[in-house]
């Protein structure tokens, strides 16, 4: 199994096809770096030729107009502007989320504990200890990617994506944590994922409301604390 994470010495901009650029920040995953990513995102959105931006974990995806934008020019501009962006706190709220660890919906917990040679209770305690920060939007509207996972729980993603239940899924992927949205009425019960499902949050507030201009309940920079409601073995 793999165990390391890619850490860049210098920021890097790479092509993501013919109409998108990806800026990867230098250094280990960090909050100040992410604060700079959020600020950069707001600035780059205004640039000519940019049609969308999306913060990732210490990275920024910049989507370009495929006909009119000049990727080489914008790539150079990104590298030029990035070092000038300063870190800075943004206002944030805290959401506490009750979690049922293990059991159905958390079926990867025993294997994950075995992988780390920890008992299940220790894994749960490590997971529930920190305050997590919403770092980046997720794969669909909802709570987004969380920063703050205790690196003792660093777990490589599944070799092949597995089918796991949808609905308040609490999961670990590499050095990251996340919290899935509640299941949509009529939506699929299972989705493929490379992440390890360690629990579920049965009583989640609805994380997004599409009738609102800002649909997500939590914004980038907001915090989540997981409360241990029960451990199912």
């Amino acid at each position, binding site marked *: 199994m793999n165990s*390391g994470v890619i850490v860049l010495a210098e920021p890097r901009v790479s092509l993501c096809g*013919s109409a998108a650029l990806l800026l990867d920040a230098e250094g280990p*995953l960090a909050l100040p770096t992410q604060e700079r990513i959020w600020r950069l995102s707001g600035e780059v959105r205004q640039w000519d030729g940019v049609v969308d931006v999306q913060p990732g974990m210490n*990275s920024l995806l910049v989507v370009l107009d*495929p006909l009119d934008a000049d990727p080489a020019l914008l790539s150079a501009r990104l590298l030029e502007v990035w070092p000038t962006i300063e870190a800075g706190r943004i206002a944030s709220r805290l959401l506490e989320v009750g979690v049922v660890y293990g059991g159905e919906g958390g079926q990867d917990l025993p294997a994950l504990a075995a992988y780390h040679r920890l008992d299940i209770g220790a894994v749960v305690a490590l997971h529930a200890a920190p305050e997590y920060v919403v770092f980046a939007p997720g*794969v669909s509207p909802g709570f987004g*990617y969380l920063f703050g996972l205790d690196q003792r729980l660093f777990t490589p993603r599944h*070799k092949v*994506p597995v089918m796991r239940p949808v609905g308040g899924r609490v999961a670990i992927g590499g050095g*990251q944590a996340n919290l899935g949205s509640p299941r949509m009425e009529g939506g699929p019960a299972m989705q493929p994922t490379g992440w390890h499902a360690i629990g579920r949050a049965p009583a989640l507030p609805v994380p997004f409301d599409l009738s609102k201009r800002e649909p997500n309940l939590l914004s980038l920079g907001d915090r989540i604390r997981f409360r241990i409601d029960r451990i199912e073995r």
Partner: protein
Amino acid sequence: MIEILDTPPLNSVQDLGRLGFRCHGMGRSGAMDRVALQAANALLGNDETAAGIEFQLFPAVLRFHAGTVFALTGADCAARLDGHPLPPWWAMEAKAGQELVLSPPQHGLRSYLAVQGGIDVPPVFGSRSTQMRDGFGGLAGRALCAGDRLAAMPAPPCATRDRAGYGALPASFALAAPVHETAGEGEIVLRVIAAAEYEQFDEASRASLWNMPWKVTSQSNRQGYRLAGSALQRTELLEMRSHGIVPGVIQVPPSGQPIIQLADGNSAGGYPKIGVVIEADLWRIAQAAPGNILRFVACTLEEARAAEREIATYLAKLRRLAGYCRLPIMEKAA
């Protein structure tokens, strides 16, 4: 007004997708074959962002409850209007009460139906496309089913100059197919730009990407296509931080079997990216069926830009020529 009389699951209202809302975790969604949908709208003189219906499973049966000019593009689904066969990539008038039957295509996978003015469903975050995974957009956030009625947006009434209708040269004939040296008959060639983790793959894997056939597996849908071929391996298995991704990205999970993320794919991911299929070739994937063979050929930014321009020119010409094939209703009455 169109009524769906019969349809298998997974056919849905789609436009060109959502742009500008990735900060909320919203990917693009929209038509898998964007060229076909745009061509259907161009045939009718619709706004290019108008919504149509994407058919990916057949047979489907619809009834027109009001007269309209409609266009059908994408995979040839041997359509019949009240029993009369339609050529592929065709636009014609339907009278109130007429029934349109779409049958499983012999080649290709997805067909597109556009009506004058476009399908009228409420836009959600700038788009009428159905995001089935998260259940929003389109008609109530879901695929179409029998009994659904879809209204058209208002459009100036018009008729076709020729009662038989008029057609377009399909994109697969009009647009130059990318060339791959060892591709066999019927294999689908896609242009790819190497992505950030390309250099992390060993030499044999990098060569395999360009030289080996990639079979579309049955685990392929609007979210993405899983491919089968010789396993792609990295020299060192490092974990990635999650980052934004675009439709067309070729991710390689540790199994070594690549996944191309598509219209309803995740807006972010953490598997290494060996390359990205250029935007201008995504419609070719949309028409690739399980069992088809894909081939990847390296492409420069200049070539990608030229391919984009070729599509834009094709659609603009189609729109102009189609304009001559329609008449405003008033003129016809006089």
